[in-house]
């Protein structure tokens, strides 16, 4: 039986992972760039909250500032890739490596944030905050992808020559999409810091794998931008919760996620073949 406390964790962490899954969708499926910067941006978002606390700056600005900071990092990766011609994976790796040092310099390897401040900073419960942000981000991205700007982003990923043949520079749309995706990842990181009440330089490890898993699970049900992406992200937290509730050793968490992905993808491909 899953307790209320566990349910809150599922919703909060599933929602945060859902945000990173949306970011991964924008980079992998819209502009077709596998961007590793997302992991660094997530950490930068968390670090920024910690830095604001340590510098006694107003926390109310944390979420918008983290979004713009992430966006700035996305632009950095985009410029490395589009202007300097560096391979997209390498651009993401360089940017993430750079961020590792920046985050360390900003807040140190481990920063405990006073528990009395962060989790209770918002007047409403954290799961609701995360859900609210998730719904807003999902709505904005869904609208964006249907708009002319969003269509240009999709076209830049799938047929850059076509975008050029209609008088537009695809590099602009790719950089804009990277900025939005990394802004969302940093926003998720900031929410994660608010939720956990601490910042760790290694707190982002595995977040991109989780997001890509969510993307994969969601894509099995619907290849387009849909709520299945969020279901995919949430499913992983449910698995984790079930493992905890069943008294299983949590080390089997990732193995069970892998099995779930294999079953879903193999099932979907068998269905497609038939």
């Amino acid at each position, binding site marked *: 039986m899953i307790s209320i406390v566990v349910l809150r964790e599922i919703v909060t962490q599933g929602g945060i992972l859902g945000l990173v899954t949306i970011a991964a969708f924008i980079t992998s499926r819209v502009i077709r760039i596998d961007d590793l910067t997302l992991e660094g941006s997530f950490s930068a978002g968390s670090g920024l909250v910690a830095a604001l606390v340590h510098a006694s700056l107003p926390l109310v600005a944390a979420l918008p500032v983290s979004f713009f900071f992430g966006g700035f990092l996305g632009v950095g990766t985009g410029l490395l890739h589009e202007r300097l011609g560096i391979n997209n994976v390498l651009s993401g790796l360089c940017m993430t490596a750079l961020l590792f040092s920046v985050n360390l310099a900003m807040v140190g390897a481990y920063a405990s944030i006073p528990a009395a401040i962060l989790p209770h900073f918002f007047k409403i419960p954290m799961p609701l905050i995360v859900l609210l942000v998730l719904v807003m981000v999902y709505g904005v991205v869904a*609208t*964006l992808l*249907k*708009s*002319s*700007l969003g*269509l*240009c982003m*999709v*076209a830049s990923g*799938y*047929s850059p*020559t*076509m*975008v*050029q*043949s*209609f*008088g*537009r*520079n*695809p590099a602009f749309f790719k950089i804009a999409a990277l900025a939005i995706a990394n802004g969302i990842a940093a926003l998720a990181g900031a929410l994660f810091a608010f939720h956990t009440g601490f910042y760790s330089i290694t707190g982002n490890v595995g977040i991109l794998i989780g997001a890509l898993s969510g993307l994969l699970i969601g894509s099995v049900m619907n290849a387009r931008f849909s709520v299945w992406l969020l279901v995919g992200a949430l499913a992983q937290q449910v698995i984790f919760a079930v493992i905890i509730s069943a008294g299983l050793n949590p080390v089997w968490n990732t193995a069970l996620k892998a099995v779930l992905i294999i079953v879903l993808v193999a099932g979907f491909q068998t269905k497609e073949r038939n």
Partner: protein
Amino acid sequence: MLRLEQINLCLSNGEQLFNCLSYTFAGGQRHIISGHNGVGKSTLLGVIAGLRNADDGALYWGQSVVHAVPFYERTKQFLGVVFQRPAQGCVLVLTVGQNLQLAGMKNKQFSFSIEHDAAILAQAHRYAEALNLNLADLLDRPMAHLSGGQQQLIACIMVLLTKPKLLLLDEPTAALSPSAVGLLTQVLIQYQEAEGSTIICVTHDTTFAQQLGTTMHELDSQGLRSMPLCS
């Protein structure tokens, strides 16, 4: 008028494809370029479009020097290209309607609007009707679900919607049935005469070439030369 001056282009394997190629395409004409396979017809279109850089030489559109202008700037100013492979001229994962929406955005401001431009859509319907395409049935279908011929016709419509002053066509009939080729020829002639634009078309389809062309040119290892128009 389009003028090529002393264009040199060496391929990566060291082969000299164009050696001091100079030529002038008169404005307001429908030019057909023919030649053997591998002689560099598509590459020449690529150089004119800006998709491929010549090693040296100059390219003039009217009085403007354009060889240093990037492809997307040329398309913004005067150029339209119909590619041999429709996948280069459209986005297969998007619907026909979304592709037309993208074509209608040339030189317009971005917006978060998801509505089709009514004027663009009406013009697209007129072209589609002339090409015997039922656009209303196709609008919500992904381009990938269309046949190669339908994709090519939609790609042609998309380019015509942007009203280019110089239209480059690279084997546009490769995927089309004979009847569709006839309809496309009529549409292209009507467009060129109405807009007074210049068309340069590379094709191996002699019937299409004779019906569309007002001037013929042959490309060989010596360069471009004018050919008599076959009746």
